[in-house]
């Protein structure tokens, strides 16, 4: 398999990588860049645990190829805090105790960031398709 050069701006840092065409963005983030906030769960686009922000929109990174992302601006949960101050969503998840084991929480936050903060409207329809089984849902 030929490798392909891609340049990404991840959490405001430019990175150029050589990737195989069949590498998912989730694999690149977790396995090459050690950004393990986005989680590998269903791997099929169903649950949202792998959600990161690409060009301002939430994206399920387990079903997106890194080669498709050349030139994209990507934000992960690791890049949310400013200096040492957590993002208001991170703060409120903590304050409300909206976490049980926390596995899916980064995906929740990256999804909520768009629906809550960017568009100033609360998510409808059961938190916009994030699937969770254990989380204290009423805390969201």
């Amino acid at each position, binding site marked *: *398999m030929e490798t392909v050069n891609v340049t990404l701006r991840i959490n405001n840092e430019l990175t150029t990588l050589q990737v195989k065409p069949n590498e998912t963005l989730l*694999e690149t983030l977790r396995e090459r860049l050690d950004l393990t906030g986005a989680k590998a769960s269903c791997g099929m686009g169903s649950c949202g645990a792998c959600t990161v922000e690409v060009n301002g929109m939430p994206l399920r990174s387990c*079903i997106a190829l890194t*080669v*498709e992302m050349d030139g994209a601006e990507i934000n992960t949960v690791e890049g949310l805090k400013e200096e040492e101050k957590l993002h208001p969503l991170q703060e409120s998840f903590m304050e409300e105790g909206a976490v049980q084991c926390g596995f899916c929480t980064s995906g929740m936050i990256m999804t909520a960031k768009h629906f809550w903060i960017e568009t100033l409207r609360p998510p409808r329809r059961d938190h*916009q398709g994030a699937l969770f089984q254990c989380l204290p849902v009423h805390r969201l």
Partner: protein
Amino acid sequence: MILPDFEYRKAETVADAIGLYNEFAGNVRYLAGGTDLMPLLKHRLSTPAVVIDLKGILDLSTITAQDGWLTIGANVTLFALKQNQTIRDYFPVFYQSLEATACETLQMRGTIGGNLLQDTRCIEYNKSNDWRVARGFCLKMGGKTCNVVPGARVCLSNYCSDNALALISLSATVKVIGPGGERAMAIEEIFSGKGSKPFALEPGEILTHIRIPMEKSKGAYEKLRVRKSIDYPLVAVAACLKEDNARICVGGIGPAPRVYDLKGLGTDRVVDASRSTYADAKAVSNTTLSPEYRKRMAGVLFRRAVNKALKEEK
């Protein structure tokens, strides 16, 4: 689950994509948002040598209103379509089907072209390779038997696009371009009716545009699913009303949607037509809900959609 090996090419024009199709002798898959294709590849339900990304084809990324038609490029995302004011004002059934598709994050990635050409689904088909090898390959995988209905000769996997139903009820047409040239047809003609190969497209054909006649309509979309936040339809009905006529499309059961044209919208006509969906719906045990329930719900959603559309404010 990791993806199989493949090469990646990005096309800039439709001609480019068809050139690549020919160069690799058809051993390719076209890629739009990948929300249907990536899971299929992960499950090894498709193992192309090359994936050809269509997202760079700018001609396919616009929406234009001209000459009495709304023309939508195949690359436009479902989310972008939801923001379009003409769709909200003229085609309420389409707006509602977009809203009912998957979840908003997937609508941001998924395109309308990919939505229409998504593969049919079955509880015995959308599974890992190991699972399918252990179970034995079914008709849709090139095997000799159906794993849902023993002895069945045809595949009754379900076509699950929400938006195809709305577009059929709106009498939309599609344009395709392939190695053999260009053609246009009514959208319902893209279906073969066969679950094993659901589309009547020629090899290498690319769906380029969808056109909807610009007539104001009343409409409603009703969908049965287990989880409201994200789920494929288990049966769904799109109803589009223009004056005293209705075009109603039932889908989510079997490999192709079914169309009902009603002249006159008296209660008796609507109820009679809704009852005929029971016999027409070829439901089998290939989803999470029972075939009997889905068949019965087809008629219920049919009446619900028509009534909702009738009540809608002009």
